[in-house]
């Protein structure tokens, strides 16, 4: 292990900005609130910067003051906006920095979206949260975000206005599954080689879009295992290849039958292959959280709720253990 920072402090997101090598740690102090730390020397030293905060008087719902409860996603603003950073929070606010993270401002247009107060609710956390921020590298004002529970929202003007992109998704946990918002995408990612190909691991299955989120298609295996889970990753060189880390079900959030499996599709979700070689196949209770499965070229890495970190050099065909005794793993990323 090269370094360990903030021992004993839960880190919701560990993020390395590929543009400049800056490391970020989103902290979740139980007592002292969320904090944001920045390192420009790969974790040798850190400086605390002001974490995103809700302006005075803002409310989650009528009578419930808004305070940042969790930093749940972080993304850089692209190569044309070198000082821009995005952060998604619980209770549902998106924040943007235009000064390299020295300060963050609430994105008012989304916070004031007419669906928010009545149509968004907690999922995974007590209040709504933004866990996915997908910036289109072809046009960095074009962004998709994922909210639990609300769904997928899209902006084409860097957050000035938003469109709901939930068509084709299901929300079978709702009394009225035909609602406009209230969907539970656990994570949303885009294929680097074709950003119009979006993938999401949703509470109600695995969904894919080939038209930038305008339409979603359920590509789950009805009988599993590729069905319920939290994480998803897409190959850098193939928009039809993706990995998921299945859990049993929403009512039983453990490995399926005590065995850890990663599933990969090579054909856009038509079929899924079970990858188990090198993964524990008995007495295993690990699941993989939404930001803890990533890939880079042929390498795939995931971390689990029981502190196991696994690595595959060949797109998941074979796995080896990197570490068995880490704390619960929330977030994994390749860093240069």
């Amino acid at each position, binding site marked *: 292990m090269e370094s360990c920072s903030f021992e004993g402090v839960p880190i919701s997101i560990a993020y390395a900005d590929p543009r400049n090598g800056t490391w970020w740690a989103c902290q979740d*102090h*139980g*007592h*002292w*609130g969320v904090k944001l730390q920045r390192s420009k020397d790969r974790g040798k030293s850190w400086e*605390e910067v*002001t*974490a995103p*905060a*809700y302006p*005075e*008087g*803002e409310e989650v719902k009528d009578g419930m*003051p*808004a*305070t*940042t409860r969790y930093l749940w996603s972080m993304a850089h603003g692209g190569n044309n906006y070198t000082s821009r950073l995005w952060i998604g929070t619980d209770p549902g606010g998106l924040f943007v920095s235009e000064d390299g993270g020295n300060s963050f401002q609430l994105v008012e247009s989304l916070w004031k979206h007419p669906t928010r107060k009545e149509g968004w609710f907690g999922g995974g956390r007590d209040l709504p949260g933004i866990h996915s921020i997908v910036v289109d590298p072809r046009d960095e004002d074009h962004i998709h975000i994922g909210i639990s529970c609300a769904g997928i929202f899209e902006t084409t003007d860097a957050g000035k206005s938003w469109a709901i992109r939930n068509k084709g998704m299901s929300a079978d946990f709702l009394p009225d599954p035909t609602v406009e918002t209230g969907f539970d995408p656990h994570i949303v990612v885009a294929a680097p080689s074709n950003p119009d190909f979006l993938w999401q691991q949703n509470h109600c299955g695995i969904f894919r879009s080939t038209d930038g989120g305008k339409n979603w298609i359920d590509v789950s295996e009805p009988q599993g295992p590729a069905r319920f889970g939290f994480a998803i990753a897409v190959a850098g060189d193939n928009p039809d290849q993706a990995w998921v880390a299945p859990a049993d079900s929403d009512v039983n959030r453990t490995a399926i039958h005590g065995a850890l499996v990663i599933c990969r599709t090579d054909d856009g979700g038509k079929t899924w292959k079970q990858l188990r070689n090198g993964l524990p196949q008995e007495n295993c209770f690990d699941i993989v959280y939404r930001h803890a499965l990533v890939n880079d070229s042929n390498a795939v890495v995931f971390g689990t709720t029981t502190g196991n970190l696994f690595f595959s050099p060949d797109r998941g065909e074979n796995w080896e253990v990197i570490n068995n005794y880490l704390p619960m793993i929330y977030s994994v990323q390749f860093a240069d």
Partner: protein
Amino acid sequence: MALVKFTYALKRFFPKLADTKANGKTLPAVLQEIEASYPGVTKYVLDDQGRLRQHVNIFIDGVMIKDRTKLSDPFQENSEIYIMQALSGG
């Protein structure tokens, strides 16, 4: 002047934190003085809207404050104000 004391747990983040005398006549005024001495510390104690964080307590002369929203609990010239973490979770 009131004397402000802090839980040892805050010293992890503010190593120089020590008992501090404050002139303020209200809790928000006292915290403002503390913030001037230890920049950033009030963000650990108060949330975005200036309310006492859920798992933080303030005691005035051994009595827990009642108003966690506006921090309007009164205190005396020579009161001891103790900022502590609630032992939530065990």
